[in-house]
């Protein structure tokens, strides 16, 4: 019950922060006085909570009870999306809403190389969260816009995360253990 309440509170916080800080995606900071860092923290809290709940209460539970599996080609297999796919679909939908902020799931050891660290901030951030387990904050310029960029550690919360990555033929790292930092969630808030 408490976890559910926390989720709702975090969602409400993100909504209010988006309304106050983004102003429809135009300005990240304004009279509300919410810093980009607080907003990034709030976004991460919500998306991470949602994925954790999906992983534990939907995927793990239903797979454990042999009701339905989660597979990569979930549409043709008539199965559930993998937790990482669920996360990426949410990020994609959020990006379509054009509210300014974006988030992505990246790794130094990605199965799909398009999800490798690309910008200097991503590379440095992923290395640092891997080493410390703590968030990493910086600013960067991409194209003609400046961004506040936060990188949060993405830990293996379920055995399925570990086995899927360790067993995949395209995975550059095959000795992940439960609790390891497997990558990072990168949240960007435009500053211009």
């Amino acid at each position, binding site marked *: 019950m408490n976890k559910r309440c926390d989720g709702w509170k975090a969602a409400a916080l993100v909504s209010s922060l988006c309304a106050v800080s983004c102003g429809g995606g135009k300005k990240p900071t304004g009279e509300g006085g919410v810093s980009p860092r607080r907003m990034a923290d709030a976004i991460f809290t919500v998306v991470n909570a949602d994925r954790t709940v999906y992983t534990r209460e939907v995927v793990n539970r239903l797979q454990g009870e042999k009701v339905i599996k989660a597979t990569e080609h979930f*549409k043709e297999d008539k199965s559930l999306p993998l937790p990482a796919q669920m996360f990426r679909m949410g990020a994609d939908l959020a990006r379509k809403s054009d509210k300014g902020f974006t988030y992505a799931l990246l790794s130094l050891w990605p199965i799909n190389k398009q999800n490798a660290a690309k910008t200097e901030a991503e590379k440095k951030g992923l290395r640092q969260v891997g080493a410390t387990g703590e968030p990493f904050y910086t600013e960067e310029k*991409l194209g003609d816009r400046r961004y506040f960029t936060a990188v949060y550690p993405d830990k293996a919360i379920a055995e399925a995360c570990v086995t899927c990555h360790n067993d995949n033929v395209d995975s550059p790292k095959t000795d992940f253990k439960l609790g390891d930092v497997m990558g990072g969630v990168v949240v960007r808030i435009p500053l211009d």
Partner: protein
Amino acid sequence: MKTRTKYLLFGAVSASALAFYGTPYLRERGPEKLRHMPGRTMDGHYQIEQRCDACHTPFGGVANEACLKCHGADLEAASDSHPESKFADPRNAERVARFDARACATCHREHAPERTSRTGVTVPVDFCGHCHEAIAEERPSHQGRGPATCAQTGCHVFHDNRGLHEDFLKKHLGEPSLLAVAAVLPRAAPGRERRVPDDAPAALADAASSAAWAKSGHARGGVSCSGCHLDEQRVSLDGSASGPEPRHASRAWQRRPGFASCRRCHEGEAQGFDGGKHGMREAAGLPAMTAGSARRPMKAGAADRSLGCASCHDAHAADTRAAAVDACLACHDDAHSRAYKAGPHFKAWERELAGQGPPGSGVSCATCHLPRATRQGTDGARVAVQHDQNANLRPTTKMLRSVCASCHGVGFAIDALADAALVESNFDRRPRVHVDSMEMVGARARARAEKEAKKRAREAEEKAR
């Protein structure tokens, strides 16, 4: 008057004149507009080229929304591999600066016939290299293959990879050219028989039509003469089209019921028809397409035939077998169509019609171009015919999964579709082109199996210790 003021005044007058005359012009429809066409349209848009405003927003260019109005549902169903949102991610800003894949018109530029491919792409074929230049590092099997080969038949499709992704191909490794059970989806099972009497007014009754109707699915399914001929405009009690308690506001007998009459029961089929070349003109508010207005070769005697439900489906017999071959060949006169009756697909069709082949084993024109598909509705899934004959073309690889794989091994079908001469001669021989997608997938499957075997051995060893 100062020079600056003169310029401003000139600009304002010009803009007003342009707005006054230009906006209605864009909204106009009709052949006279074609005089101002900046260049030949793509084949896919040709039928609606008189409707400039289908794509152009007055003073706003061509927005993605205009493209998505017609193509959005297909892209969604295909789980588009390269949606606009992917490139809207700021981490792709550098790529977008080099190649702005956010805009449909970057790759699909209209009125540029000199650089338009058969699939409506107007950028050089090596465009994949803008982002995937280092693919050989990730996939050593791709070493030495230039970016111009990515989109060749049987390899990758920019938007729709449902029939080519690795796991799909892996499931079909080692298949023979013709599967042991070679048949498409069965027709939807007929519903409960509900025979109804012929209810045409005596003055309008026609014995031949009535006899044909009595043997049809309509008669068995409870659709009497009035079901099609009585024009019922549904208007609700509050006068609106969508208000509560709809009632029949008018009931006029139609000698020749139109598209709307069929649509009342066959909405899914009608939507497909609207999306294809046969129906897009009428759907865009233009007169129905005629065979004579097609770009593909059509029979001279068919030029005046207009496209509607009844042009392929006999209105009373409603025999779908005639609609599946004879109706197509009554108009189409290209090499592929002309070769059909000499090819193996037609032989299989004849065998099925003669009762010598199992249901679904025959291959008509419609089997491939208007294929049966499972459609999810509110009342569950049902098999229905996709009436957009372009949906599984452009590129032809899209046909692989929805049609070819029902009867043929996927590797064989990839080769067949990649052999352009074979497609033109309507598959009268075995393919002479080979695409090595299946070998690549096979090699990776073996590597994966070896990796799993090593892991199991390691675990067993650890357990023993």
